[in-house]
C-alpha cells in the first residue's frame, strides 16, 4: 500500500476516538503532547506549570500527559486517560493506554469502542540493515491486539526520524517490514506515517521532504471514518429502557428505548421480540422528544408497538426470524482481573442490556500475544487472552464479534467483588 498521496475529504464530522499504543520509551507521551500543543489544546496555566518545571530549558511535552498524584509518586501510569483536542474539521478523543503495567488490560479497554489505533514504532530501536528487518515484539503485540478488538483503522507512526542518519532509507525499510507483517496477520493498514514527535515533524504539519509525499499524522487522522455498524439489512435493538407515559399503573402506552445495533426501523415494520418470540408491528418511532419517520444504526430509538406486550430491559427487538440464540458459545476471552479465571465458577455476564449468570466451561488455549498463536493452556491470569467455551443460564442472541460489536461482546463480572473481570468476543455457537 502506498502512502496516501491526497487526503480524502471528510464527510463525517463525528468525533474520532483513537487509542495510542506504545511502550515507555517510544515517545508516545511526547507525540500526544505534540498533538495537544500544536492544536492549542494546552492552556496557558498548564503550560505555566511545565515552564516552571523546565526552569529555562525547552518544555517537556511528555509531561502534559502526566496523570494522577498516585502515578507521579510511583513514576508509572496506572490507567487509561482520555484527552481531547479539535481541529477545524474534527473533534478527537484520545484513549491513552499506558505502555507497561497491566498492559493488555488497559489496551483492551482503550481499544473497545475506538475508531482507530495509532501504534508507535521507535525507529531507533530497529536495525535497518538487517534482512529481513525484525520488528519489536511490542509493535506486533499492539497491532495484533487492536486487530483482535476489530479497531477499524490501524495506523503506524514511525517515530524518532530526527534521530537516524538516513531517514529516507530507514523509513522505507521499516515501512516494508510493517506491510509484510500486516499482510501475514491479515491486518488492513490505514497508513504508515513518518514522524518526529520531539521536533514536531509531520505530526500536524506535512513533512517537507522529497522522500515522503503523504499526509501528516493529523491529516490522516482527520480523514479516518468513525466506526459504523451497518445500516442496511436486518434490524437489531437491545432494549435499554422501558418508559411509561404518565403516572400510575395500568396499561399506559410504553416506549421501548434502545440504541440500534444494526439496520433501520420505521413505522409499519414487523418485528419479533427476544426472548418471548412474540411478534408485533412498529406503530411509532421516536428520537429524543420527537416522533420521526425512521431511525438507523447508532441512534437511540424509541419504539412504540401496536399492541401491549410484556417487554423489559435486556430484551431484544429484531426483524422476524433473524435471531439465533445460543446458550453455549465459543469466544475469545481477555482476562482483566488479578484473580485468575476459574473454570466452572458462576460469574455474571452482561450481553447487550441483559445480565445473566454464566460459567467458563473450558479454557481451550491461551494466545501468545506477540503472534496470536494458540498455545495449549487451561488457565488464564490477568492480562492474558485465550479461547474459551461459555455456557449461560439463559439463551442469548449472540452474534460473531467480527460481524457486530454489540451482539458479539460481553463483559464478565466477579459476583463477589463486582469487579469487571473479563471481556468476551464471541466467535460462534459451540
Amino acid at each position, binding site marked *: 500500500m502506498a502512502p496516501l498521496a491526497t487526503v480524502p475529504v471528510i464527510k*463525517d*464530522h*463525528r*468525533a474520532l476516538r483513537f487509542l495510542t499504543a506504545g511502550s515507555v520509551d517510544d515517545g508516545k507521551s511526547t507525540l500526544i503532547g505534540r498533538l495537544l*500543543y*500544536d*492544536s*492549542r489544546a*494546552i*492552556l*496557558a*496555566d*498548564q503550560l505555566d*506549570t511545565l515552564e516552571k518545571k523546565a526552569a529555562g530549558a525547552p518544555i517537556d511535552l511528555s509531561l502534559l500527559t*502526566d*496523570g*494522577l*498524584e498516585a502515578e*507521579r509518586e510511583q513514576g508509572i501510569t*496506572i*490507567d*487509561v*486517560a*482520555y*484527552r*481531547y483536542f*479539535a*481541529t*477545524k474539521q*474534527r*473533534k478527537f*478523543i484520545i484513549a491513552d493506554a499506558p505502555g507497561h503495567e497491566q498492559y493488555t488490560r*488497559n489496551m*483492551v*479497554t482503550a481499544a*473497545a*469502542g475506538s475508531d482507530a489505533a495509532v501504534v508507535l514504532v521507535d525507529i531507533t530501536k530497529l536495525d535497518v540493515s538487517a534482512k529481513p528487518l525484525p520488528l519489536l515484539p511490542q509493535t506486533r503485540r499492539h497491532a495484533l491486539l487492536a486487530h483482535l478488538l476489530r479497531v477499524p483503522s490501524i495506523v503506524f507512526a514511525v517515530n524518532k526520524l530526527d534521530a537516524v542518519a538516513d531517514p529516507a532509507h530507514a523509513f522505507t525499510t521499516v515501512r516494508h517490514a510493517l506491510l509484510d507483517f500486516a499482510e501475514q496477520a491479515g491486518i488492513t493498514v490505514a497508513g504508515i506515517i513518518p514522524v518526529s514527535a520531539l521536533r514536531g515533524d509531520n505530526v500536524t504539519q506535512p513533512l517537507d521532504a522529497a522522500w515522503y509525499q503523504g499526509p501528516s499524522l493529523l491529516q490522516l487522522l482527520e480523514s479516518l471514518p468513525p466506526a459504523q455498524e451497518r445500516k442496511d439489512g436486518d434490524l437489531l435493538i437491545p432494549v*435499554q*429502557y*422501558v418508559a411509561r*407515559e404518565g403516572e400510575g399503573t395500568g396499561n399506559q402506552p410504553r416506549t421501548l428505548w434502545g440504541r440500534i445495533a444494526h439496520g433501520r426501523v420505521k413505522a409499519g415494520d414487523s418485528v419479533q421480540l427476544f426472548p418471548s418470540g412474540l411478534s408485533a408491528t412498529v406503530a411509532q418511532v*421516536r428520537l*429524543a*422528544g420527537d416522533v420521526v419517520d425512521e431511525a438507523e444504526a*447508532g441512534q*437511540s430509538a424509541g419504539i412504540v408497538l401496536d399492541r401491549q406486550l410484556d417487554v423489559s*430491559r435486556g430484551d431484544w427487538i429484531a426483524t422476524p426470524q433473524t435471531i439465533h440464540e445460543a446458550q453455549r458459545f465459543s469466544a475469545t476471552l481477555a482476562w*482483566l482481573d488479578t484473580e485468575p479465571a476459574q473454570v466452572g465458577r458462576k460469574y*455474571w455476564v*452482561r450481553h447487550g*442490556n441483559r*445480565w445473566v449468570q454464566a460459567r467458563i466451561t473450558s479454557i481451550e488455549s491461551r494466545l501468545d500475544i506477540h503472534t496470536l498463536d494458540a498455545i495449549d493452556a487451561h488457565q488464564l491470569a490477568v492480562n492474558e487472552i485465550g479461547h474459551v467455551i461459555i455456557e449461560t443460564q439463559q439463551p442469548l442472541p449472540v452474534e460473531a464479534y467480527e460481524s457486530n460489536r*454489540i451482539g458479539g*461482546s*460481553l*463483559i464478565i*463480572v466477579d459476583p463477589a467483588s*463486582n469487579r*469487571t473481570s473479563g*471481556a468476551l468476543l464471541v466467535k460462534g455457537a459451540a
Partner: protein
Amino acid sequence: MNAPLTVEQLLPELDHTHLDWLEEEAIFILRETVAAFERPALLFSGGKDSCVVLRLAEKAFKSKSGEGQYKGRLPFPLLHVDTGHNFPEVIEFRDRRVAEMGERLVVGHLEDSIQRGTIRLSHPLESRNNHQTVALLEAIEEHRFDVLMGGARRDEEKARAKERIFSHRDSFGQWQPKEQRPELWTLFNTRIKPGEHMRAFPISNWTELDVWLYIARENIPLPSLYFAHNRKVIRRKGLLVPLTEVTPLEAGESVETAEVRFRTVGDMTCTCPVESPALTATDIVAETLKVTISERGATRMDDRTSDASMERRKKEGYF
C-alpha cells in the same frame, strides 16, 4: 508559549454532527442510569454544565407538546448541595427553573451539617467548597440515592481525565482511582453492593467549547452571571475576586468596577469572574475559541493550591 494562533486552526466548521453525536451518547448514558438503578438523582447547581445535563435529561425522558415544550416529569429528583455561599442570582435561577419545569428539588444544606457538627470550619469565611463533600454524602445517605448523575467533564482537570463514565464509590463515598473498573464498549458495569453508590457522567466527553456550542444551539437558559455585567471586583493574585460579604476587601486593596462574566459558578469564596463583554452564548463560543487559560485555572482559587488538589477532593467523595 503556545504554537501561533490562527482562527482556521481553531474554528471547527460549524457542522453539528459532532454535537449530535455527543448528545446521543449523553442521552444513552442518562437512560442507562435510570434503567439500571433504583434511586437516581441528578446533581443540579444552576451551573452551565448541570443546565446542559438537565436539557439532555428532558430530551431523554420527556416528549414534546405541540408547542415544542417538553412535558411530563423527570423520573428522578434534582439534588443541590447549597454551601450557603452561593451567588443569589444562581439560587434564584435554580428555584425558578425547577418551578417552571415542575421538577422535584432536594437541597442538602451545608449549614445543617455545620449545625450537626459533621462539618467544622476553621474560620467563618473559609471556603466551603471542600466541605460540600460531607453535605453531599449526608444527602445521599438520607435519601438513599444509589446513583448521582453529574455534569463533570474529562477535559476539566487531569484527575478527571481518568474518570469512568460510571464511577464506583465505596460505602464511605470514596473514589479509588487504582480500583477503577475497566469500561468496555457500552457494557457498563452498574453492579454495586448495599451502601455503595455510583456517579454517572453523561457529558464526560464534552469540552468547554462543546458545552457552549450546545447552549447556543439549544437556547439553554443560564443564570445571568454567565454573561457580561458590571461587578465590583478586587484584583488579587492575578484573579478578579468579586466583592461579596464573604470575600471582603483586604488591607491595601482597592475595589473597581469591571465588565465581567463567570465561566463557572461555585462557592462565592472561591469563584472568580473573567473580564469579558460577551452577552450571548454565541459571543462566549467566539471567546472560548480564543481562550488561553484553562477554565479551572482562571476561575478557581482552590484548584491553585496544588497540582493534585482535585484528585484529593475526588478521592474523598467530591463531585
